[in-house]
């Protein structure tokens, strides 16, 4: 089984990197190499299974309580494994270039060690079919990613971020523990396959389990309001790690949710509603907070929340389909969600790579300090643009395809279902449309302010294009986004196996419904082709027209103002000001304004920041309260030994009074 080899290689690579690590030695290629080889090896069985090949399984006894080394590669796992392996390899290559600046200042052994462990952990999570093994891998993944996030632990902000991430993910795991153990009690086994066969029969328990799974897996995936760690951790981490975490690691939460849905039997309607509600909350709030950010990577992090919301919407549609017994909704909903998992992995990885390149070139995340980078970093700019169009869900790229499926499901459900199904779907349509529009707004802002116009500060004016190690992964991902857009029907066809596996529908049913969804996409592709041809035509036309005419260079029309400076350009904050003012009540943006005073105003300034909703208003106060409450109890250990002996006496008396009858 190729995947076992892959894991073995990763393990060896991790060990080797750690062993050979010296501050002055470059171990990057060793680490990256092992990851790449592992990914290539792993992809073979994955693609086989996705193309309807036989499901592979490995069972080896594992001498720990309730544990068994039980791996199964079924289509669902394969579907998530594919982007995981792909992005792991690309991020590794990118990382080689990205980490070069640390060469000599810091031993790179640990970071590559944990990178390998992280990839290994993700693979194990997706393959494990034994509860103990799953949790084991799950925590392994969390720990490894934590150490990657705190790579630059000298910076206070990074430590804070890492701390929040670690605590959040660990608390999420607590819910998973309960979820798994309750299921185990119900089914008397630790075995996912057994769980899937027996299923949870008692309604109430299933509901509880569903909620537990939502919280536990949602924390990792970044559902509002459990998302707090994302906007902290992603900016803190090295960019290739941010790409990996945001692109695929958080998807393990989605995977876990889908996997646990296969245990929980027939869902009631409200499960679908809940997921659509969560999806809308995460989507809309995610994109709104993204709009309000000035930090490029933080902005991207909030967009991960948004896209996770879109995936949740897809799953929600699918669930409604299950509970209303409509196969088309199941296929289109789950299909759209699953496809978006892949797409988001591609364009979010791409965007984080771009952000990393900008960071490395200019040394800042601050959008408002940048500008005009397109002239200096043409490749980065072009690929980032593609990513931006894709994530905004615009044709002809991949983001449009998955959102198209989800919309399709929503429209069909909205047209056929009764009120109980149609109303949530209407909300979904409105919400998803709004999300799309705001996402476009957000990325016109991001791309426009960072790459277009004139440099706003020194940071932006002295910078350079990145090396090939970082450029290549970006180009490949950009190509991926375009290809999925162009070959949408085939990609959708590839969902066949995984959808049978997820929905449990018969092959024929899935095939028919998929075809029903692929048909429109085929025409979308035709439209796309027409669009491209027209583009070429117009290009030629324009060239022909301008040929031999006067084409001059001038200055931008400043509406009569004679001395425009770069600092007069519209900034990111001013660009989104209409949104932030409209949603002020929600965003709670802090403005610090120093008004210009006097006839000759010396200095004036306006700074805004938008802290996270839940983190600021929910979690931090909560923790402080708890801490205060506990500190009241610390009086118990006051010092005098008499008191301590008194405790003994009291305990004795209490025990006697309680038990001695």
């Amino acid at each position: 089984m190729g995947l076992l080899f892959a894991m073995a290689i990763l393990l060896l690579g991790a060990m080797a990197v750690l062993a050979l690590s010296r501050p002055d030695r470059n171990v990057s290629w060793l680490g990256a190499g092992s990851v790449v080889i592992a990914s290539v090896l792993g992809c073979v069985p994955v693609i086989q299974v996705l193309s309807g090949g036989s499901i592979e399984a490995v069972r080896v006894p594992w001498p720990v309580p309730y544990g068994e080394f039980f791996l199964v590669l079924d289509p669902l796992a394969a579907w998530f494994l594919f982007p995981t392996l792909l992005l792991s390899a690309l991020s590794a290559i990118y990382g080689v270039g990205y980490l070069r600046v640390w060469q000599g200042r810091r031993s790179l052994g640990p970071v590559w060690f944990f990178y390998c462990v992280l990839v290994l952990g993700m693979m194990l999570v997706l393959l494990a079919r034994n509860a103990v093994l799953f949790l084991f891998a799950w925590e392994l993944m969390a720990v490894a990613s934590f150490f990657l996030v705190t790579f630059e632990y000298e910076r206070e902000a990074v430590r804070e971020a890492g701390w929040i991430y670690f605590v959040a993910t660990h608390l999420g795991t607590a819910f998973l523990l309960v979820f798994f153990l309750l299921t185990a009690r119900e089914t008397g086994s630790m075995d996912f396959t057994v769980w899937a066969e027996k299923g949870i029969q008692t309604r109430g328990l299933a509901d509880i389990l569903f909620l537990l799974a939502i919280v536990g897996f949602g924390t990792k995936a970044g559902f509002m309001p459990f998302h707090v760690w994302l906007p902290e951790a992603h900016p803190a981490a090295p960019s290739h790690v941010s790409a990996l975490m945001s692109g695929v690691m958080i998807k393990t939460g989605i995977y876990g949710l889908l996997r646990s849905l296969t245990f929980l039997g027939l869902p009631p309607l409200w499960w679908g509603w809940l997921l659509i509600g969560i999806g809308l909350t995460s989507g809309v709030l995610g994109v709104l907070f993204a709009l309000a950010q000035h930090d490029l990577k933080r902005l991207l992090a909030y967009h991960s929340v948004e896209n996770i919301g879109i995936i949740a919407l897809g799953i929600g549609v699918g669930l409604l389909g299950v509970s209303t017994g409509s196969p088309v909704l199941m296929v289109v909903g789950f299909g759209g969600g699953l496809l978006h998992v892949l797409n988001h992995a591609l364009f979010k990885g791409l965007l984080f790579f771009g952000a990393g390149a900008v960071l490395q070139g200019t040394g800042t995340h601050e959008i408002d300090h940048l500008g005009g980078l397109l002239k200096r970093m043409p490749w980065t700019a072009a690929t980032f643009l593609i990513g931006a169009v894709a994530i905004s869900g615009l044709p002809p790229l991949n983001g449009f395809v998955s959102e198209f499926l989800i919309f399709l499901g929503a429209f069909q459900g909205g047209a056929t279902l009764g009120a109980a199904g149609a109303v949530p779907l209407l909300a979904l349509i409105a919400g998803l449309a709004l999300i799309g529009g705001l996402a476009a707004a957000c990325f016109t802002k991001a791309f426009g302010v960072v790459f277009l116009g004139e440099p706003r500060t020194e940071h932006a004016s002295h910078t350079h294009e990145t090396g090939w190690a970082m450029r290549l992964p970006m180009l490949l991902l950009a190509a991926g986004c375009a290809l999925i857009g162009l070959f949408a029907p085939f990609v959708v066809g590839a969902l066949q196996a995984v959808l049978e596996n997820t929905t449990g529908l018969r092959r024929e049913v899935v095939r028919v419904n998929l075809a029903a969804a692929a048909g429109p996409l085929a025409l979308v592709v035709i439209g796309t082709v027409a669009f491209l041809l027209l583009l070429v035509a117009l290009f030629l036309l324009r060239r022909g027209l301008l040929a031999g005419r006067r084409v001059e260079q001038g200055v931008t029309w400043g509406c009569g103002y004679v001395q425009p400076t770069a600092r007069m350009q519209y900034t990111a904050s001013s660009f989104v000001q209409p949104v932030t003012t409209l949603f002020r009540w929600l965003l709670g943006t802090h403005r610090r304004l120093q008004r210009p005073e006097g006839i000759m105003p010396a200095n004036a300034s306006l700074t805004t920041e938008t802290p996270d909703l839940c983190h600021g208003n929910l979690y931090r106060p909560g923790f402080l309260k708890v801490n205060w409450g506990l500190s009241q109890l610390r009086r118990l250990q006051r010092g005098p030994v008499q008191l301590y002996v008194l405790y003994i006496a009291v305990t004795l008396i209490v025990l006697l009074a309680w038990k001695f009858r």
Partner: protein
Amino acid sequence: MILLLFIIPALAGLAAFALRSPAVRRGLLIGTALVHAALTAICWQTTPSPALGGWLALDAAGLLFLSITSGLFLVASFYAAGYLGQQANKHITDAEEGMLFDNAPEAVFIGCLLLFLATMTLVTVSQHFGLLWVAVEATTLASAPLIYFHRHHRSLEATWKYLLVCSVGIALALLACFFLGVAATPPNGEGFPLVLSDLVAKAQQLQTPWLKAACLLFFVGYGTKMGLAPLHTWLPDAHSEAPSVVSALLSGAVLNCAFLGLVRVQQVCVAAGLGAFGRDVWLLLGLVSLVVGAVFIIGQTDYKRLLAYSSVENMGIIALGVGLGSAGAFGAMLHAVNHSLAKAMLFLLSGNILARYQTKNIAQVRGLLSAAPVTGVLWVAGFLAITGTPPFGLFLSKFTILKAAIDGGRTWIVVMFLVAVGVIFIGMTTAFFGMAQGVPDKGASKLANRDRWWQIAPPAVLGLLVLWLGLAIPGPLNNVLRQIAATLGDAP
């Protein structure tokens, strides 16, 4: 054989008082530890024959705890030898208040250390409750001078509290022994000796009221020594003031010895059909300890006290496990093993940190990873281990105990367990990563002499053991754990 296990360290200890040359003394220490460990290893091969008419015997539980003790002592002895070499009789400025003080003579230290080993061994092998009591009390007395190694007022205070609180508690345990004696005399017939095997065999004839009373007294008595809240009060003081190697032994071995005593009691209770009665008490004390641990770990400013309270917490978890019946008891035993290793590791490391930074205040320790890479990495690993994060052993044991709780349908226990453990995790994360990461201040980096092997090797070995137990549980160990668990759960 069993006698050897006990006598060799005892004699060595007495000899150590007499010996003059420090080198020989330290040699004796390590040598004895090695021999003891070797004997213990042999015990895994061939169960030794009982001695003194069955008063001394080695059953599964005894073997388990004997091995923990012996192994820890072996590792610690290396650390201690190096430590003493460093501390060799000179005036030392106190970290907290900067006054000068002397250490106790090294002869006393090593002598008591060996006697300490002897007494702990006696605890693990004695089957007779009276003898068990004598041994437990003896461990207290043998360790008191160790805690008072640094001759300054804080360690003195710690010693005094340790002595008084433990002695009081253990005196109650003695009464419990006598009660057991009464319980073991049926109104009509002649009584029988307080040997575990007999008690278990004739458990049905025991007089319930006396047994119950004895049981409760035992809980208070040995519970004090085991550090179950609210009887734990001596623990943080003693652990924070004792030399780190002693703290390691206290946390890793002594608490387990007391726990073993309570396990014996529970075995009798189960045999007498009072299993549920005992388990209720286990659960209560366990939960209280968990909560107390959480309360004092959040916002703790002294890292040695932090570790001490974490011991309270883990003892609570172990108690919970036993209180949850057979399946939980398995987890509890496993947790006892894991906790001993991890906690000893951490205490040894805290010794390194104290030596480097000259402070026990968490806020003043920064950038451990940069200042002392190996110690730093081990410190982080130890944190992961003690908080029950894979791939370390405590994850499995905690998981097993939690499973037992959920299978038993003990909702509230599950909730409290998870909440307490979560709070503790938050507290420890802030403390540990605050110390490990960040930029070290000049002071730490100035005396940035590299850690010596004796500071690194012992904790590293312990860390590897915990890791191993997290990846796979060896067959023999598994059997032993199962045997113990079987004696602690009601027969189906």
